[in-house]
């Protein structure tokens, strides 16, 4: 497994395995059982595969796509044994992830070499934006970068305090104008602070908002604009945080947030809890936006870069 040696150190790998343990036993574990003992792809196998994929939140369209491709492959290849079928299925899914996503990132490289590199974090309520920011800041801090967190969630009760505590845990800078202030102004000022204090990275938090609230989505566009006003090339990354326990609505979220803010990357959280994570397949299938990070636990180091090859491989182990 030279692959893992390159991208994962041992502990990280264990976290991912632990996080996906449930997924494994439910998803591809079942699949392995479904494959075993079947020598051809018959209808009942496809039915079973369909049920496994759908009950893992993969979504109807993507499931149908995977089934079609699998059938196509099998037709081309002719007779195959169980192992081969398993391999074809695996590569079909990896392929699907590959063609819709940009290249895998290998570590926590900053999205831009410009300083400060500005990252705007968005998402619906309760997906784990602030936690993800804390974990990401910690990673950059480990690389010796100077980081500032901007408290752009000025709406939810105590959101500013929550981010401040994270900045203290990480040991990085923190910029806030307090609660109930204009988030666009906070974003602007955070970039200014980062420039004046020679920070390498500025990560700006925003209030959770449902993607259906037009005015709140407009506010996000405004926040983004005011960042660009201070620094023309910023934000260098707009990170949409998605909760892996979410069902098909995650796809709607990805769509609307992309429309409002040109999302450039996704973070998928709570993968340690849900038995699925199949929503990642559905989203990758429909958006050109890459999944960059996955959250696999509550500890500060439990954020990982998303690697589709490793993700699928790890599921099949």
């Amino acid at each position, binding site marked *: 497994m030279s692959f893992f040696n390159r991208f994962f150190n041992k502990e990280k790998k264990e976290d991912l395995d632990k996080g996906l343990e*449930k997924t494994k036993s439910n998803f591809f574990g079942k699949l392995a059982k479904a494959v075993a003992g079947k020598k051809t792809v018959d209808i009942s196998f496809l039915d079973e595969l369909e*049920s496994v994929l*759908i*009950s*893992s*939140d993969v*979504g*109807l*369209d993507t499931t149908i796509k995977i089934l079609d491709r699998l059938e196509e492959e099998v037709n081309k290849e002719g007779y195959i044994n169980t192992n081969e079928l398993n391999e074809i299925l695996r590569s079909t899914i990896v392929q699907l992830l590959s063609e819709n996503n940009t290249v895998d990132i290998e570590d926590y490289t900053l999205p831009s070499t410009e300083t400060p590199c500005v990252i705007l974090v968005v998402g*619906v*309520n*309760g*997906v*784990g934006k*602030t936690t993800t920011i804390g974990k990401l800041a910690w990673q950059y801090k480990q690389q010796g970068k100077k980081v500032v967190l901007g408290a752009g969630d000025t*709406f*939810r*009760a*105590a*959101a500013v*305090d*929550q981010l*401040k*505590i*994270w900045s203290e*845990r990480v040991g990085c800078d923190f910029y806030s104008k307090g609660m109930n202030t204009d988030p666009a102004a906070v974003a602007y000022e955070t970039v200014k602070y980062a420039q004046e204090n020679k920070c390498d990275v500025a990560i700006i938090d925003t209030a959770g908002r*449902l*993607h*259906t*609230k*037009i*005015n709140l989505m*407009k506010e996000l566009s405004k926040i983004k604009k005011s960042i660009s006003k201070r620094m023309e090339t910023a934000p260098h990354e707009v990170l949409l945080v998605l*909760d892996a*326990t*979410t*069902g*098909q*609505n*995650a796809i*709607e979220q990805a769509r609307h947030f992309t429309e409002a803010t040109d999302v450039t990357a996704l973070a998928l959280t*709570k993968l*340690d*809890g*849900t*038995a*699925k994570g*199949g*929503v990642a397949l559905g989203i990758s299938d429909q958006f050109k936006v890459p999944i960059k990070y996955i959250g696999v636990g*509550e500890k500060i180091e439990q954020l990982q870069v998303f690697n589709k090859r490793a993700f699928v491989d790890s599921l099949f182990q």
Partner: protein
Amino acid sequence: MFDNLSDRLEGAFKSLRGENKLTELNIAQSIKEIRRALVAADVNYKIAKEFTDTVKDKALGQENVLSSVKPGQLMVKIVQDELTALMGGEAAEINLKGKPTVILIAGLQGSGKTTFSGKLANFLKKKKKSPLLVACDVYRPAAINQISVLGEQIGVPVYKEEENKDPVEIALKAIGHAKDHNFDVVIVDTAGRLSIDEAMMTEISNIREAIQPEETLFVVDSMTGQDAVNTAKAFNDVINYDGVVLTKLDGDTRGGAALSIKYTVGKPIKFVSSGEKMDTLDVFFPDRMAQRILGMGDITSFVEKAQEQFDEKEAKRLEKKIRKNKFDFNDFHDQINQIRKMGDIKSLLKMIPGMGKLTRNLDIDNNAFKKVEAIIQSMTPQERANPELLNMSRKNRIAGGCGQTINEINMFIKQFDEMRKMMHKMSKSPGFAGGAAGVPGGGAGGGRISRARKKKKRR
């Protein structure tokens, strides 16, 4: 994906024209459509399958009804009735008999426990109870501050111990505090936890054992996918909760998780919560949820929202004015404001069956009335009260005042005149009642309201 199940079912039955009986063969396609609609709504895959099997049996049992009702409509009705029955059952009130009543709140991270706790406290306070909130999330940064801020907002005291890391002890002391200070409801907010986190699940079990709550509520995000079943079951196994709270229903999720959970654990859904404001807590209506899951709009909620803003006296006054053909720009402006008070216009339109598809690509926002408002506000008080006054020179002045072209002004006045005529005409028809004036601009809105009102009385 499936904007209207009825349309799709009609389609599935089109090829069957001439057949007048539902058979296993000719409903196969529609059963598949139903299953797909349910799955797309995040109803658990297995449950969707079992459910459609039930529907199939029911449908095959129907005798010779197709002469009067279209088969597609019949299927929709069967599905809707079955769904409603499944999610309903006996009315689920919360038990407030304890002295004090203790309510334990539990759920996953980010499901909305703290916001719900605040809303529940607010809800009870309005019912003349004196609630006490208890901050038992000792883990998440600033969780205690969050509930304190909410408590302050709604004027409900919060019991907290910043230094104490033992939620069992905090909860017990809070109950003691409540007894000493005459609080009659204690709402214990806890940390979010994963159902597979054994240590945390033991903790919530210990809290429950220690405080013996009258009511334990499981809070779940309505956007949850297929996993809802596992989580709901795991929590139920450990804390045997009394009811479920569905949150974030103000989004566009179909909310299939509601069905999955009810089906799996059989516990009633006691509240639905939508929005971040403290007064957006509702009791659960299974028929509405059924319509939502099927993507069929939610006309009942629409009507209720309209009624909330509906002022009987005001309507009577308006009715009189319409009868005398005296409806003026001031009244029109009031009406716009009333509609706006009902909330986001796009989400309102979505509640009307069949509108979901129409509004999808339509960018209606809450500023939709801005232009009209600007015109009205550029008029003098005399002009607003007497639409007849508007002549060319006045129109020109108004156009300058609101920054719109004279054409736009003319168009608006023409529409206003037509609307006024129409309303006057309607007012002479025998069915016209005060209620019809709630939403002006067409007979359709008025008609719906009255129809639904009758329906409400029947309940």
